[in-house]
């Protein structure tokens, strides 16, 4: 039987706890509201010897991501967290992480450049940078997804960096009842990181010159990795369910009361809670309404949507989003 502990913690704390359970080896981080508690909690774990990791307390997020790239190519498990202007400041390096094919996991409690409310403009700008982006609804899911995240990103069919995204100020700071898995169980789910190749390894006896062919071929492979990621996300979701008894739809999309639905709402992250209540209320009034929560924003699960649509036959989808793209009503 799975051993779990029940605690009342925030989404940020849940992420930090997952990172500890994942036995991450190198962390770099820089404070920013509402992410800082992740950094602080991890600092505590390291200061207390509960987590045996190198922790680079960088002087800014651009350097943070540079350090993560440097550590990543040494073939060890890496983690960081940032959001809002921090994510934006790091953009140049974010754009490059996937080129290294290192499975970095980043936690992002979304916020905008200035406002102190959740808003996805920070991570939407990164939707083209090759990150897998999983949006989660709750503190519990943040913990579960961080653990799954390492497994997905590190899978040799994928080897792409991954973001765990949750609503800043809301999920990040809301205390909630969360089940904490045991180290033992997590070790079963997430074995130590086996790099596909270690690009920086001074102990190697043969000297190797790494080469990369032109960008087009790289792009093709990254595209393939992203396609594979869909399968791998599903698998991780299933395996996790087997051990811990929790799953989120097929891992890509989580449907809610879609049976015979005429219309379904498409939501992401914490707004889903409210939307579920709306669906419940409408169902009570006899309206055939359902809900699809988009968990995997990248890779985008077009097939799952189509399958679900076929299966349940709903006619219309209404999308609720928390970001705005200027000047693009059709792009």
């Amino acid at each position: 039987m799975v051993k779990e502990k029940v605690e009342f913690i925030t989404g940020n704390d849940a992420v930090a706890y997952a990172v500890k359970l994942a036995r991450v080896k190198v962390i770099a981080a820089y404070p920013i509201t509402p992410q800082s508690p992740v950094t602080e909690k991890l600092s505590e774990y390291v200061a207390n010897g509960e987590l045996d990791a190198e922790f680079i307390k960088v002087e800014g997020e651009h350097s943070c991501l540079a350090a993560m790239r440097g550590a990543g190519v040494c073939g060890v498990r890496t983690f960081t967290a940032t959001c809002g202007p921090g994510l934006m400041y790091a953009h140049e390096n974010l754009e490059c992480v996937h080129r290294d094919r290192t499975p970095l996991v980043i936690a992002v409690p979304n916020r905008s450049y200035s406002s102190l409310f959740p808003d996805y403009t920070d991570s939407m700008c990164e939707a083209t940078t090759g990150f897998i982006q999983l949006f989660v609804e709750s503190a519990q899911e943040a913990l579960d997804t961080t653990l799954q995240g390492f497994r997905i990103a590190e899978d040799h069919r994928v080897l792409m960096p991954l973001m765990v995204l949750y609503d800043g100020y809301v999920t990040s700071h809301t205390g909630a009842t969360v089940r904490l898995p045991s180290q033992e169980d997590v070790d079963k789910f997430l074995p130590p990181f086996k790099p596909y190749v270690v690009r920086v390894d001074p102990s190697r006896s043969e000297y190797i010159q790494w080469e990369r062919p032109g960008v087009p071929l790289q792009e093709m492979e990254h595209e393939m990795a992203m396609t594979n990621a869909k399968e791998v996300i599903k698998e991780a979701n299933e395996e996790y369910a087997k051990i811990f008894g929790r799953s989120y739809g097929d891992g890509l999309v989580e449907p809610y009361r879609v049976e015979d639905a005429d219309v379904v709402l498409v939501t992401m992250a914490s707004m889903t809670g409210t939307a579920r209540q709306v669906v419940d209320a409408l169902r009570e009034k006899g309206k055939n309404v359902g809900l699809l929560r988009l968990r995997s924003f990248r890779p985008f699960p077009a097939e799952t949507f189509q399958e679900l649509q076929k299966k349940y036959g709903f006619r219309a989808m209404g999308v609720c989003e928390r970001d705005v793209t200027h000047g693009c009503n059709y792009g």
Partner: protein
Amino acid sequence: MTEQKIEWKTLRGRKLDEEAIKKYQEGRAVWAWRVFKPIVDEEACRRCWLCVDYCPEGVIEKGEKAAEINYLLCKGCGVCAEECPVEAIKMERER
């Protein structure tokens, strides 16, 4: 689990053993960059190895008798000739 392992083509590791290095160097020979070619006067050379240290590319070896230049890889910059304390190296027009 689907066994759909991908082969990375984007990151090619080329082993660098002696042979590979030689091939690599041949493939990238830079002699054509030269306008002038350094010629060592074996008699004059005092084997001080200053030119060995100063050759930017590091293509002068400590030879048995005198400094030995690898003409495949020498770019003809003229530093060795300029710095040889006994003027044992002369730059000659390549052709």
